[in-house]
């Protein structure tokens, strides 16, 4: 396979629940071994994106577009194909480890189940591999912990177990949906550190879904900022934080209380996220935007390049891109 080809490619992915759009056309590519952050507020569609891509949404959801994993189309694929992909090539972990693990089965059995399904192991090797996985995710005394039930472990330990299960199929991509939101700050730091070192060891790609800009800043190479079912800005992490282009991204960054300097009023974004049944006609962010102009309500802006690998969907970016084009012509 061409090394530059993306591992996963989402094209014009759309999701609607009972006719109400939750995801309104999303394009995203994840390269092998890359760490991509997806940031946004609740309801922006960051989790729905990956649930839709992996066929995990209930049947009331209408999904359209394309999700390709190394040339294979996943949308509408047969259950047999999906079973090999999910857990095998793409694994996913969720916010609340306690509700993702089965409370009445021992940890060991749950890790071994994934190994049996995706690696076809059985007998003594499966036990040895389960212990190795728990060791790899930093659970002390792994051999004894295999016999523990989820309630006997702390939240951070349970999240480590979830990561071990996700690693069982040797995935090429790990999708982590708010993996540290339910955890304390010091434990969050441990889990993020673990994800980083696992990525270095195994070379897998990582998609980190979070509402916390600070978390992506430290973990991801590329960041996609989502708002109301669309990506509004996409950039390498360093340039996103150094030169945010979209007013929403700038608003999110300004809303973080500073660590130093004088304390002044935070620049909060007025209003709230639009409801799916009352989506503004043009740019979804326009009603809350401090830099709104007449053209914002005409049509949803298309993402244009504003720097190296840096794209933003804002009418101001569109206009300055047009001017630049004229000047260079």
């Amino acid at each position, binding site marked *: 396979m061409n090394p530059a080809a993306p591992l996963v490619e989402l094209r014009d992915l759309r999701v609607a629940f009972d006719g109400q759009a939750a995801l309104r056309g999303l394009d995203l590519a994840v390269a092998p071994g890359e760490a991509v952050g997806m940031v946004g507020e609740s309801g922006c569609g960051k989790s729905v994106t990956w649930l839709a891509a992996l066929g995990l949404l209930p049947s009331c959801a209408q999904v359209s577009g394309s999700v390709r994993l190394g040339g294979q189309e996943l949308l509408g694929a047969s259950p047999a194909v999906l079973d090999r992909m999910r857990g095998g090539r793409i694994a996913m972990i969720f916010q609340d480890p306690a509700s993702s693990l089965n409370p009445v089965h021992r940890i060991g059995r749950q890790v071994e189940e994934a190994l049996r399904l995706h690696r076809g192991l059985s007998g003594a090797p499966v036990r040895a591999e389960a212990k190795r996985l728990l060791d790899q995710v930093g659970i002390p005394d792994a051999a004894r912990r295999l016999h523990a039930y989820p309630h006997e472990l702390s939240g951070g330990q349970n999240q480590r177990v979830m990561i071990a299960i996700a690693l069982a199929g040797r995935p090429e991509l790990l999708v982590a949906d708010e993996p540290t939101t339910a955890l304390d700050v010091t*434990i969050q730091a441990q889990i993020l550190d673990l994800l980083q070192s696992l990525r270095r060891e195994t070379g897998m790609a990582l998609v980190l879904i979070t509402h916390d*800009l*600070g978390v992506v800043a430290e973990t991801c190479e590329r960041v996609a900022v989502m708002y109301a079912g669309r990506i509004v800005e996409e950039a390498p992490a360093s340039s996103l*934080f150094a030169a945010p282009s979209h007013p929403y991204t700038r608003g999110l960054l300004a809303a973080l209380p500073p*660590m130093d300097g004088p304390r002044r009023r935070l620049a909060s974004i007025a209003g*709230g996220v639009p409801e799916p049944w009352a989506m503004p006609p043009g740019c979804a962010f326009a009603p809350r935007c401090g830099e709104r102009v007449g053209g914002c309500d005409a049509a949803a802006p298309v993402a244009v390049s504003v720097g190296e690998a840096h794209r933003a969907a804002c009418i101001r970016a569109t206009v300055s891109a047009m001017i630049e084009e004229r000047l260079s012509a």
Partner: protein
Amino acid sequence: MTTGTTPLLEARGLVRSYAARRGPWGRATEVRAVDGVSLAVQPGRTLGLVGESGCGKSTTGRLLLGMEAPDGGVVSFEGQPLPAPGSAAWRAQRARMQMVFQDPLGALDRRLPIGAQVAEPLEIHRIGAAAERSGRVEELLNAVGLRGDHAARYPHELSGGQRQRAVLARALAMAPALLVCDEPISALDVSIQAQVMNLLVELQERFGMGMVFVSHDLRAVRQVSHRVAVMYLGRIVEEGEPDAVLHAPAHPYTQALVSAIPHPGRAGRRLMLQGDPPNPADRPSGCAFHPRCPVARPLCAREAPVLKAGGADGRLVACHVTQGAVPAGAGLPAMRKAA
């Protein structure tokens, strides 16, 4: 901390323990959720209470309002000890001390419109004539940034940020002298958190109430507080001015907490804490932090440090190493293994 005026609220040596059982036949053990907490809130100022889950910060908040009776220690409000919880005197007193909870949907009655809920405290304490109350409700809703017509809405018709505003309007109805906010922003989105933090600061400037801001988020605490107390396993381990504590944390736990804040553009390695958050039912001997502490010495496992003044910036710290009783060690590997 030592000012001439009487503090609005003062707590001395608060202790609260619960009986917990391990398994249906296990013997009941005493869990000390709050273990000797002393603090003071000045009128018109905010005290931030920070710590991780299970450190006793919420229990402390509840004890301060007398929503739970302490097993030891006293709380005094404006120089007078708090009346016994549940008594008539306490109910009258409580009108002046209000609480704001984390989950606004859980704190509001889903079957009542917002206006009726904001008016309820006025009715209970028989304030104003019935006819005047709707005007007062509108005033309160406007003060928290809601419109008068929101009064007719039900909680499910409001967004999360609007609900928290409604909860604040209800808390402000009695013009309280003290507001205890228990994680008031952690259930909200980032852009809405900023709105609510701004609102809290504005309301304090306008109405001059003292506040206790309980949160696990050090950034938020710095934004709204005049003083901050860091709790670990039921005790205050460090207390001081927010900037002093955040920029030059003295206690090793505070250092780890500050270092764990994810931060765009942060450079340098993070101070990583080993091990899990401690179990209050199985409290380590001596300094409760010693099994996770990178600089612990044998003394730390034997003797609990006392919270006392350290440094010129009015800071209080409870740590043997910081207080200079012992030089910094390299942790206690034997204990770490056992933990």
